[in-house]
């Protein structure tokens, strides 16, 4: 009797039989956790407005995901954390002083149009948070490029507007940037710490690197995309960034300003929208870097990380198809 009972307990299932401890929701929540340092630094520099803007994004993301799944009778996937992460990333990509309808509409576009209408998590072609941001940037360019001067005083609602370092670099040149920040060393330190105008979560390089190091340590992201992305930006900034000719640019300013750190470590490495083969990831990173620098140096916008990642997202299927590793024993058919 006991033996029969034992037999019944044997589970017959299809492969894979060994499952990893890692689940989608665990990865999503860990990535959200790794964004915490950058979020805290954003809250510190930009005050309560930054917290409110991000909170609006997260709440709208959760609500719109739930509402869409309710309307279309789909499985409720709120607890997997992907909507939370999208909301958090979008919030961290907005200036702190935007009017409150901007985060709401941006998040609805990100969750409903970019993610759910394409079939939900895993089927989206583009990074939802970045599409949300691109949508609001094109729709309300004025509000989206009015940056707040960082102020370390807590609980201050009034803000002085200021230009981002990349904006100053584009409009007025390096000399003006140096005059504003004192000397070059001071500029580097301020950029590293994050004491500059910009989106809520993109300013503090140290905080972002801290979170990224945690993700790399947990092996949630590999360094292929971030390193090739940042490396390409550095090389092109060095080659063509200077006013006095070739090889006179300053790569460090370009690396540490704008949304490059946030984009390269947290957005370009999105599992769904980046290539899965390592070789392809390097191609993806280089492409992102090229487009970013093309926009920064020659384009109309001062910052191009967002458009670069979105454009390369289009190429992800193409890259994956052409650079996948050869299957052992597989031979190409001879053309007749």
């Amino acid at each position, binding site marked *: 009797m006991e033996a029969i009972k034992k037999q019944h307990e044997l589970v017959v299932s299809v492969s894979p039989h060994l499952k990893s401890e890692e689940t989608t929701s665990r990865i999503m929540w860990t990535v959200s956790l790794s964004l915490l340092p950058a979020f805290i630094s954003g809250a510190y520099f930009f005050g309560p407005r930054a917290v409110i803007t991000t909170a609006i994004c997260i709440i709208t993301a959760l609500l719109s995901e739930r509402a869409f799944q309710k309307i279309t009778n789909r499985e409720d996937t709120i607890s997997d954390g992907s909507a939370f992460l999208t909301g958090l990333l979008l919030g961290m990509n907005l200036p702190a002083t935007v009017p409150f309808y901007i985060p709401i509409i941006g998040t609805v576009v990100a969750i409903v*149009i970019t993610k759910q*209408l394409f079939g939900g998590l895993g089927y989206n072609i583009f990074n939802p948070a970045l599409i949300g941001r691109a*949508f609001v940037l*094109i*729709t*309300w360019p004025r509000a989206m490029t009015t940056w707040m001067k960082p102020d370390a005083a807590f609980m201050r609602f009034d803000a002085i507007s200021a230009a981002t370092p990349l904006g100053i670099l584009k409009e007025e040149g390096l000399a003006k940037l140096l005059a504003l920040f004192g000397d070059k060393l001071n500029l580097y330190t301020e950029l590293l710490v994050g004491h500059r105008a910009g989106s809520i979560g993109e300013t503090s390089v140290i905080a972002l690197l801290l979170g990224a190091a945690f993700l790399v340590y947990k092996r949630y992201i590999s360094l292929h995309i971030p390193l090739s992305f940042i490396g390409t930006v550095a090389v092109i900034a060095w080659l063509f960034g200077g006013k006095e000719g070739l090889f006179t640019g300053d790569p460090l300013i370009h690396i540490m300003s704008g949304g490059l750190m946030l984009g390269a470590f947290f957005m370009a490495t999105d599992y769904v929208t980046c290539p899965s083969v390592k070789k392809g990831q390097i191609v993806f990173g280089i492409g992102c870097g090229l487009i970013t620098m093309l926009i920064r140096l020659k384009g109309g916008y001062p910052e191009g990380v967002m458009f670069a990642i979105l454009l390369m997202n289009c190429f992800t299927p193409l890259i994956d198809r052409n650079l996948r590793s050869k299957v052992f024993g597989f031979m190409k058919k001879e053309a007749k």
Partner: protein
Amino acid sequence: MSNEDRISNWQLIKNGIFKENTIFRLVISLCPSIAVTNSVKNGFLLGVAVLFVQTMVNTTVAIFRKFIHPKIRIPIFMLIISGWVTVVDMVMAAYARAAYKEIGLYIQIIVAFASILARAEMFASKNRVCNAFFDGLGSGLGFLLALVLISFFRELLGRGSLWGFHIVQAKPMLIFILPAGGFLAVGLLMAFFNWIDMRFYGGKGAGGASGH
């Protein structure tokens, strides 16, 4: 007999508007649906022009269908289409000069619209004159309706106005009068109609035209 004919003609019109709507179901001629729909007025005028050309081309092709050699039918269809487009072009240039300045280019480009050649090839060259006339009327009306619908949302959201009159005082969403917003509007409306079709009529969306 005449009663039966009338019903089938009515069905031809309905077919053109709903089941085989040029933009939302057949997904052809998307270029004008994005290029001219940033205001209701332009969308409506181009829709009327297409309605006229479509109907006349269908009728003409059906009249001459027995005399057109199948091997050279496409060039002949093109000649007929460009003839009628020239008529519309000249009439508009003479009587609606302000609008012609804005959408004149797209009036001339009606020659290359896939929808018109498709109706001539698929329907008019195989059917009687009367049926071809009503088929052209239906698919032209469907195109007109789609264009007005798209431009209604785009102008309302992108400019806060309708037919040039200011209505909404809120800050408009600039993206909807840019080309990117055109793609968004067309895609969202298409998804909406597919959803209605699947939810309430048991259809399969644009992939397979439903049988109602």
